[in-house]
């Protein structure tokens, strides 16, 4: 075995005394500069060596002390080391200060429910008086039978008959949009759908961007549900961005009669709200729904936050790109097309 023997080091340095090892950190730098030629590629530039690093970045990482000032209270993403006042980060993210509350918001994390969140979820289990709903949180959320609009009137009392036919409202696999009503001690959420905005979802497609970080991908915004007037004869398409990173894109269905009397709406509830049957959806609408889906996927890939503004812009750009490539009107926005769309989005913002 051929070994190139490099010039031996001076004899004095040949045997590093063993008790010396503990201080080796101190000589580390000198050691490294000695053999600068052997610089490890994995080593980051010296300026960013932690010992010398000025904490100019806003990123804080687990184990890092946020403050040792005892006037702050610790919030999410931090802990206080036993027998000290130091508040230490437990996640990698940015510091957030709310009054005297200090918390670290992770760069990315699973969705943690908060009261008032609009979420899209999927029924995973039907129990006698409630449903268990996957909302992408650490544990399933609950939707009590008492927290939905029952057919035949908003104010109607729930009866045993309703309990027996609980599956006629929601059954396993059904998708719904709901609001977080309350939180339990273990962090699990209780949902409600007691508004016409909420309820069962149909006539569309489901997407999950929770991989890009629930809180990070979809942000809590003023408007999470809106309508896009699509191009190409697709008509109106609804977009629902669940704060939990679950997204629903569907054909817009006009509530029958528009703003007629409330009693009419109630009747409406009974007939269609819990239907699992899709309406007639034209090919054009389907194309545009798919295009919006692709747009969102593209934004996720590019690490752009998902909100009404970015989606609308990107959608317009995508429509523009599609009109250039007439005849190849697939909604697919991978590769080159995606780059063009993103360039357009960048220009307009």
């Amino acid at each position, binding site marked *: 075995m051929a*070994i190139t*023997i*490099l*010039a*031996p*080091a001076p004899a004095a*340095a*040949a*045997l*590093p005394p*063993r008790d010396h*090892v*503990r201080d*080796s*950190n101190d000589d580390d730098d000198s*050691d490294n500069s000695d053999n600068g030629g*052997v610089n*490890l*590629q*994995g*080593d*980051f530039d010296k300026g960013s*060596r*932690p010992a010398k690093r000025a904490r100019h*970045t806003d*990123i804080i*990482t*687990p*184990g890092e002390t946020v403050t040792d000032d005892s006037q702050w209270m610790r919030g999410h*993403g931090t*802990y206080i080391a036993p027998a000290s006042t130091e508040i*230490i980060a*437990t*996640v*990698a*993210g*940015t510091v957030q200060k709310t009054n005297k509350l200090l918390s670290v*918001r992770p*760069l*990315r*994390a*699973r969705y943690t429910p908060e009261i008032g969140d609009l979420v899209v979820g999927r029924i995973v289990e039907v129990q006698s008086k409630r449903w268990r709903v*996957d909302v992408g949180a*650490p*544990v*399933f959320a609950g939707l009590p039978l008492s927290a939905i609009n029952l057919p035949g009137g908003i104010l109607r009392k729930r009866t045993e008959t309703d309990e027996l036919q609980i599956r006629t409202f929601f059954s396993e696999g059904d998708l719904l949009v709901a609001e977080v009503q309350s939180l339990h001690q*273990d*962090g699990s959420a209780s949902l409600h759908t007691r508004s016409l905005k909420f309820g069962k979802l149909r006539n569309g497609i489901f997407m999950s961007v*929770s*991989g*890009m*970080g629930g809180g*990070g*991908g979809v942000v809590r915004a003023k408007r999470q549900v809106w309508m896009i007037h699509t191009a190409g004869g697709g008509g109106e398409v609804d977009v629902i961005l669940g704060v939990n990173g679950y997204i629903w894109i569907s054909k817009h269905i006009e509530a029958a009669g528009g703003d007629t009397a409330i009693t009419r709406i109630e009747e409406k509830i009974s007939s269609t709200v819990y239907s699992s049957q899709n309406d007639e959806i034209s090919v054009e609408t389907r194309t545009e729904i798919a295009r919006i889906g692709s747009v969102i996927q593209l934004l*996720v*890939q*590019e*690490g*752009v*936050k998902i909100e009404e503004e970015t989606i609308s812009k990107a959608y317009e750009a995508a429509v523009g790109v599609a009109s250039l490539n007439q005849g190849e009107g697939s909604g697919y926005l991978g590769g080159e097309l995606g780059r063009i769309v993103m360039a357009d989005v960048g220009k307009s913002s």
Partner: protein
Amino acid sequence: MPLDTSSYSLALLRLDGRRWNELRRITAQISTMPSADGSSYLEMGNTKVLCTVTGPCEGGGTRDRDRADIRVELAIAGFSGVDRKRVGRGDKRVSEMVSTIQSTFASTLFTNLYPQSTIHISLHVLSQDGSLLAALLNASTLALIDAGIPMRDYITASTAGSTSSYSSNDESADPLLDLNTSEEQELPFLTVATLGGSDQVSVLVMETRVQAGRLEGMLAVGVDGCKQVREILDDVVREHGKEVLKSGRL
């Protein structure tokens, strides 16, 4: 094939040209897999591992109802080693590593924040060249940070060896940091993992015979190696964080 260690005392360089206290090249990436809650890819020299974290998600609390369970899966690819041997599911060495990783993070993560749920850590070994357990622990730490699961501090790991085997009572033996496969086969070594680059040792595994007196030196080098690894991993996380901030996702 026995490893020729005789040249070490001449040049004080190891066969791959490193000094006694030098780590191999460590490169790592996080958020490598968008569909997982957290993911990482880590290379320590030619040891390459992939880690994905899913969760915390529903179902769990079997050990303790007030905490999340941690489930670890470890798959060692048949092509990862020299002998291309398939590692079965029932392999005790694998079970031991799985149990070590599970137990390490069970006392590092704040699992009490996620009662009745499970955190899945799935590890894939693509290539093995020594310090496997250390690489797995490091990759898991990164993926767990990426998943935003609260932890006390980084768990970082490295290996340390000694330049002469147990039989030769060589007083002048040097400790070595971060062993590769051929060094592991020939020399006594240990794997050590510490919390946050401190002297707090979470994992200490040694499977070879060595004089007790040599332990201190090896442990000190190993602990120091963990400290260095922590800085490298921390830089990876910070770099990634900066990018995320730049793209305006937060």
